[in-house]
């Protein structure tokens, strides 16, 4: 009778039911936490990137003599290599955040190289900007790019000798990184500019260059002989030196029979025209000759005018780069930080 009784079995089924529930629950539970709360490393990584960029771009830096601490100042660039000096290598000009001081930039590179013997590394930079913490380290990559560059197509700023102006740190890995961009102002230093000035004995200038240009600016001052004719002509010229195929486009053409109209005097940026012209020509060149050009030239024709053309592979040029202390070259400083 007791054996036949089936109520006893009820709870056996109970047991099965419960166990299934339990196991399925636990099984699913295995991958649940990530759903409930995911690690958000970007928070700290982003702020590190922000911090580094700010300290580079807006901070003139600071040095202090540990022996006699009343000796301190902003011009670490003249001191950093001395003994007992502790310093923070900001790049900004004193009192002008966002404006990069040339010597500071140079010395920053020197200091980096002295301390880590290569630009491919960030061991020292990490330290200086506090990217090493007891529990984790962040890597940083600092580059100076032309304004035109994007996250996917970076164009390094180069000085007129073709050297990369600033690129420090290990290559950016293919993982979650934080990229912080700053638009900075560099002095219109001669190293950053390729300046062509009027030379009465010569009318035609040919400047080999690479595209896209960081910046281009033409400053037209007064005419040498107002009663005579004067002109300015700027062409972009692409050529394949083997097949001698040439393609060009005039992007600036000023031509006066009597050079007495003051309205022509001024400071004209040419960056976008030149770059656009280059892009058009490049495609057209391939279409027409199915070959790619190997030299890019900008040719200038200037007559009877005091003028100078500045081409920069660093960045956009603003202001009269010859006379105005406020003239500047605008480039992008990109700080990329990742955890690892």
């Amino acid at each position, binding site marked *: 009778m007791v054996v036949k009784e*089936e109520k006893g079995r009820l709870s056996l*089924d109970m047991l099965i*039911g419960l166990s*299934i529930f339990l196991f399925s629950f636990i099984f699913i539970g295995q991958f649940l936490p990530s*759903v409930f709360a*995911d690690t958000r490393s970007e*928070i700290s990584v982003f702020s590190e990137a922000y911090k580094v960029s700010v300290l580079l771009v807006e901070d003139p830096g600071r040095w202090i003599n540990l022996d006699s601490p009343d000796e301190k100042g902003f011009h670490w660039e003249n001191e950093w290599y001395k003994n007992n000096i502790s310093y923070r290598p900001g790049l900004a000009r004193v009192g002008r955040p966002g404006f990069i001081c040339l010597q500071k930039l140079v010395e920053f590179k020197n200091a980096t190289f002295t301390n880590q013997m290569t630009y491919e590394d960030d061991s020292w930079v990490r330290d200086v900007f506090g990217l090493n913490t007891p529990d984790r380290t962040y890597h940083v990559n600092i580059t100076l790019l032309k304004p035109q560059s994007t996250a996917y197509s970076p164009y390094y700023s180069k000085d007129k000798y073709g050297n990369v102006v600033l690129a420090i740190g290990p290559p950016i890995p293919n993982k979650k990184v934080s990229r*912080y961009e700053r638009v900075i102002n560099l002095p219109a230093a001669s190293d950053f500019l390729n300046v062509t000035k009027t030379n009465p004995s010569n009318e035609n200038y040919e400047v080999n260059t690479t595209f896209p240009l960081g910046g281009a600016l033409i400053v037209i001052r007064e005419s040498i002989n107002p009663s005579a004719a004067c002109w300015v002509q700027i062409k972009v010229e692409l050529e394949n030196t083997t097949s001698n195929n040439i393609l060009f486009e005039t992007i600036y053409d000023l031509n006066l029979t009597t050079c007495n109209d003051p309205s022509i005097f*001024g400071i004209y940026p040419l960056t976008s025209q030149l770059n656009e012209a280059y892009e058009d020509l490049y495609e057209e060149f391939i279409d027409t000759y199915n070959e790619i050009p190997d030299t890019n030239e900008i040719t200038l024709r200037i007559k009877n005018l005091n003028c100078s053309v500045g081409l920069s592979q660093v960045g956009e040029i603003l202001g009269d780069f010859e006379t105005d202390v406020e*003239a500047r070259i605008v480039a992008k400083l990109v700080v990329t930080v990742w955890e690892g």
Partner: protein
Amino acid sequence: MRKLFHNEEAQAFTLEGITAALLLLIVTYALFESSVVVSPIWSEYGNIQLKQKGYDVLRSLDVHRTSLNQSACPDLSNLSRNSLQYMLVQLNSSDPQPNSEFLNAMNAMLDPSIKKRLEVYWVNQTNNNTIQSLVLINNTPIPDAVGVGRIIVLYPCEITSQSPFNGSVNDTALAVEVRMILWYV
């Protein structure tokens, strides 16, 4: 034996157990997943970067005139045509448009993926200090666009008769705020 298979309560239990468990899990999962989607953080950081850029660009474009004083102004040819100053000075009240050089410079500094709206604000002192504004680039921003501004000082002699600022101040410097609203498309 027969009874055991025909035991309907037991089935009831097992089914309940499993269904209940699954149901609950699905609900919670759905709940949490959905809320992840509305996490604000991504757009937030984007905006920070954007705002920073905005300020940087304005600062870069603010090419202050050296060697100038209230009375004697430099002629326009000494102003870089891609500077804010030039842009403001050349504005024409009949059809206020920023000059192309300025636009080019500005666009070069901001990625193509960034859309912008440009406005200027200034105080009209002759008209009991009302704040007047002018839209130079007219795009309608999305809700979480960021705005940045910069004040440029124009000098009496730089305000020409056809300038929109003309008459706002009588023979004294004018503070013009250039506001740029930026957002990603």
